[in-house]
């Protein structure tokens, strides 16, 4: 049997506002899952809290709409316990870079085989528009009515410094490229981070499809994705958002390391030890 797009869609109509950038991410992910012919019952989408985090309700796979900022550890627990399940994690810029920022660092260290998509609208949308760690200085909201007082974070540069093993940026105005990026991310063995510029049409008029278009530049073909320093150079270039795959590194995944640990733990017992044997030590 072949899965078609509609096998991945839930019967729930997305509750996003018409025009929301997140629709494009949904479309791209649904297509990618179809292309990969993932069994929806072997797939789980984990999110935090936010408009973007409502995502799991709109697919027919397993889903976990968890709590604000904790999508990554939930996903890592799931994936470590159930390496047979395709785990996809997603959320917003507030969820991922504000309250959840630390988990991003440590997920990168662990390198679980999961894809993490952040829909960055540079705003806290679900709570009706407060500035987020990625908001530009010109985003004046009710919590910063006079001016911004903080610098923006640079998610790509952070990921490179965390040695995230796959780092890419997409734009919800370019679904074709987004699909290709998500496909590569999901093909990647390890923790793949996809930063998607995904406008909110309701609460942030500073970052729109049009304004983003002016600042993005697809990464040149000759970019060496295995060179982290080259990736750094791209992000250091001012004024532009490069889109495409920025960095990619092959290294053992968390699951592989945990397998190694298991085989080291019971060298003589290929199947593992019996519980009875563990009790011996207390005698």
């Amino acid at each position, binding site marked *: 049997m072949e899965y078609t797009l509609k096998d991945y869609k839930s019967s729930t109509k997305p509750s996003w506002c018409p025009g929301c950038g997140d629709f494009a991410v949904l479309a791209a992910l649904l297509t990618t899952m179809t292309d990969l012919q993932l069994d929806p*019952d072997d797939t789980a989408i984990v999110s935090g809290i936010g408009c973007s985090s409502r995502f799991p309700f709109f697919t027919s796979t397993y889903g976990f709409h968890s709590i604000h900022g904790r999508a990554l550890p939930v996903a890592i627990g799931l994936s470590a316990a159930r390496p047979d399940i395709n785990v996809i994690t997603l959320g917003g810029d507030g969820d991922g870079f504000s309250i959840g920022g630390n988990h991003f660092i440590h997920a990168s260290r662990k390198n679980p085989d999961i894809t993490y998509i952040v829909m960055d609208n540079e705003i806290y949308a679900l709570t009706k528009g407060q500035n987020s760690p990625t908001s530009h200085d010109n985003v004046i909201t009710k919590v910063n009515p006079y001016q911004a007082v903080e610098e923006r974070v640079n998610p790509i540069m952070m990921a490179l410094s965390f040695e995230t093993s796959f780092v890419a940026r997409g734009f919800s105005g370019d679904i074709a490229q987004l699909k290709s990026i998500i496909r590569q991310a999901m093909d990647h063995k390890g923790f793949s981070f996809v930063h998607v510029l995904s406008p909110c049409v309701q609460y942030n008029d500073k970052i729109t499809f049009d304004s983003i278009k002016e600042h993005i530049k697809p990464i040149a073909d000759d970019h060496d994705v295995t060179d982290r320093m080259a990736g750094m150079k791209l992000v250091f270039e001012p004024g532009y958002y490069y889109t495409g795959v920025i960095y990619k590194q092959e290294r053992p995944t968390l699951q592989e390391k945990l397998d190694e640990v298991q085989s080291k733990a019971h060298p003589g017992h290929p199947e593992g030890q019996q519980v009875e044997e*563990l009790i011996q030590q*207390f005698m």
Partner: protein
Amino acid sequence: MKNLVIRICGTAGEGVISSGDIFALAVARSEYYVTTFRSFPSEIRGHGQCSFQLRMSEEKAYTTGLMTDVLIGLNEEAILSNIKLLGSGGILILDSDEVKNKFEEFSGIIKYRIPITTIATEKASIRAKNMVAIGIMAGLVPQLELKEQLKKDIKKRYAKKSQEIIDSNIKAFEEGYKYATENLKREDNLASMTMEKSGPKLIMSGNEAIALAAIVAGCRFYAGYPITPATEIMEWLALEMPKVNGTMLQCEDEIAAVTAAIGASYGGVKSMTATSGPGFSLMSEALGLASMAEIPLVVVDVQRGGPSTGLPTKTEQSDLNMAVYGTHGEAPKIVIAPMNVEDCFYQTINAFNFAEKYQLPVILLSDAAIGQRKECVDKIDLSKIKIENRLKHTRETDTGLYVRYKNTLNGISPISNPGDKGGAYTATGLEHTEICQPCSTPEVHKMMTEKRFKKLETATQDFIPAKTYGPDDAKIGIITWGGTTGAVLEAVDMAREQGYKIQALYPRTIYPVPNQWLNSFVEGKEMILVAEANYTAQLLHNLVYRLNKINKDIKLFEVLKYNGEPFSAREVFDKVDKVIRQQMLKYTTFELEKDESYKF
């Protein structure tokens, strides 16, 4: 019951704790029961004084005993702060190289002055003083035949060290043993003491018992973050979990640990995390998620002195309220408190069974004293242990649909795990309909709140009933929980010897407490004391309404200790005695001491 209590004390650097540990192991392996208690300062590395008490006995004992029979002290300060624990006829062994004080003012005890430091330095090394000490301890009771086992255990303990160190330790031990058997003029009670062996048994700490039980219960995922006094659970599982193909994951903090465990359990794998107070507080939000999304989860809180960073190495039972109420909104959970090391094992099994069956977080409230001390556990018969698993998902017969949060009669809904065909659903911490759609209508919130609490109601039928100890016709009752239980049960025995009839009730599931447990206990009682190691009488406050409701005239009393130390049986007894006497004073005019009428 024949028993022997030994206490060794000295500064933290002198190996007091490890000598006690080795001795306790050897006692257990020699087929005597043993239970231990260690006390050490919470400094980074001890400059302070530590002590280690162990009680070996023919039958299982509840505590390490009231008084000590033997006290071995390596310096004067240590001896001074422990000597009052020596009963009359007790034996004090001191290092005559270090301690000049003759302790003349303490009479009625036997003092053996032994040049421990000299023996150690001359025959082995200054670092082996503790080995000389356990040699002496074994040499005091050669008839109990501990020597060979001790040598084995010393070798095991230092297996990773150089042969030189092992030899030196064995030598020191042998010299101590020799000194005791050859040089002491014995006129003490121990000289002729005998003790029956009670067959092979296990010895472990409370933390180890929890970790082992988790694996027995089917737990194959653990995530954690180090914290005193819970870290040993994580450490044991780091070593052992992979042996049974399970996973132990170190996380960046407790929030990541508990949410990873929730993720794994959502994945269908039984999961646990363990922590102590500060980490437990951090898990508060995630516990609500597990309760709302109905994800089975076991969270162990090895309680320490609080609040805040508090007293990391001291014990307290002050997290009960937090365990029951420490989440915003109304999030049903079950709270279990083991009473000792062996109970840690069996209550952990229960915790997993409840979590799986009722799809909710179960909190296991251990404490620093239980967690750290080693105690004997009777051989575990795996075939007798009942393991529960979560209800498999099914489709509705009429619609063919899978209804994840079906509002069934007992509140338990069928649960699927990723990978189960046709079971896909989206778990969420938002209020939701039976088919997992976010929903905030009044009808749905009301229905689902009731559904979630219905599970608790159902669960109470599953609990192992609270046990009683002492005569059924006692008019004085004492309720207790967790780590205070042992002291209370011994206090009941002491009371009997004093002529009081007291009955104890000790539930292991401490939230929710089913009415019937209280009903039958309260019946016939005139006063009830509730003993626990905290300041605000947390269990009492959770039960008080119902106790009153059952018997309006019941007199209720708090028996509290909140200084970071566990209750001793003597302390429980003294407080009970005081309360009883005060109560009696209300009804008598004559001198209580001389009157027996207050003894029921």
